[in-house]
């Protein structure tokens, strides 16, 4: 039961959710259309450099423009209510955040370190053999084999865009949420 002092949850206007869903759908369509065009451009041309450079510039500007005042970069470990990292106590977490847990040491990342060491070692050997060795290819040579198909390039490009774009957009939303 709510006490008289408890904040009364405000109902979300019906149009807000629909507008957000529509906006998201439009963004997805635009991004996929852009990715389709970008992955159809011949590599090693000005068009290819521009097609890849545009998202790099946009994401870099969005991620770095607020500078140091933008800390913390939100993530799954973002404390929901703790007054650390500049988050005021009692502040509601932004959508998509999960409560913190106790995972903070390097020990929990050991499997990733093993994978990284294996990948770096393999890449090092492949590069030492000239980079285009049929016996020990580099990671990019393996990936290049899949790039002959446009749908594969599209899928990988969309994945690459989401890896750079989603955390940045989420950080901006988080900032806006904190500002309100």
């Amino acid at each position: 039961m709510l006490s008289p002092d408890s904040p009364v949850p405000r109902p979300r206007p019906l149009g807000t959710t629909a507008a957000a869903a529509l906006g998201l759908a439009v963004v997805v369509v635009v991004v996929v259309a852009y990715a389709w065009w970008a992955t159809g451009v011949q590599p090693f041309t000005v068009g290819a450099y521009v097609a890849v450079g545009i998202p790099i510039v946009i994401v870099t500007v969005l991620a770095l423009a607020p500078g140091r005042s933008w800390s913390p970069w939100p993530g799954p470990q973002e404390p929901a209510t703790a007054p650390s990292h500049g988050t005021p106590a009692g502040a509601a977490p932004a959508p998509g955040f999960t409560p913190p847990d106790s995972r903070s040491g390097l020990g929990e990342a050991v499997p990733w370190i093993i994978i990284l060491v294996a990948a770096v070692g393999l890449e090092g050997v492949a590069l030492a053999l000239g980079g285009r060795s049929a016996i020990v290819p580099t990671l990019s040579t393996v990936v290049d084999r899949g790039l002959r198909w446009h749908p594969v390039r599209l899928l990988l490009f969309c994945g690459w865009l989401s890896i750079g774009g989603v955390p940045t957009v989420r950080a901006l939303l988080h900032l806006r949420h904190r500002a309100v």
Partner: protein
Amino acid sequence: MVVTVVWLGLMAASAAWEVRCRRPGSRWTSLSELGARMGRGLPGRIALLALWAFVGWHVFARYTIPR
């Protein structure tokens, strides 16, 4: 050919491990959590952006399809 399979195995293992780490109650850190933690500071964020930009540039603007 063997090393190509090893590369594909590493990619599959990474994807599977990420899924495993994201399950509720997992005691292991996911790659996205590591990235989020690293990106909280400006130097870490710049490093992540540089790595991301390099991967995109290398894979999508400067690729050569093997014969």
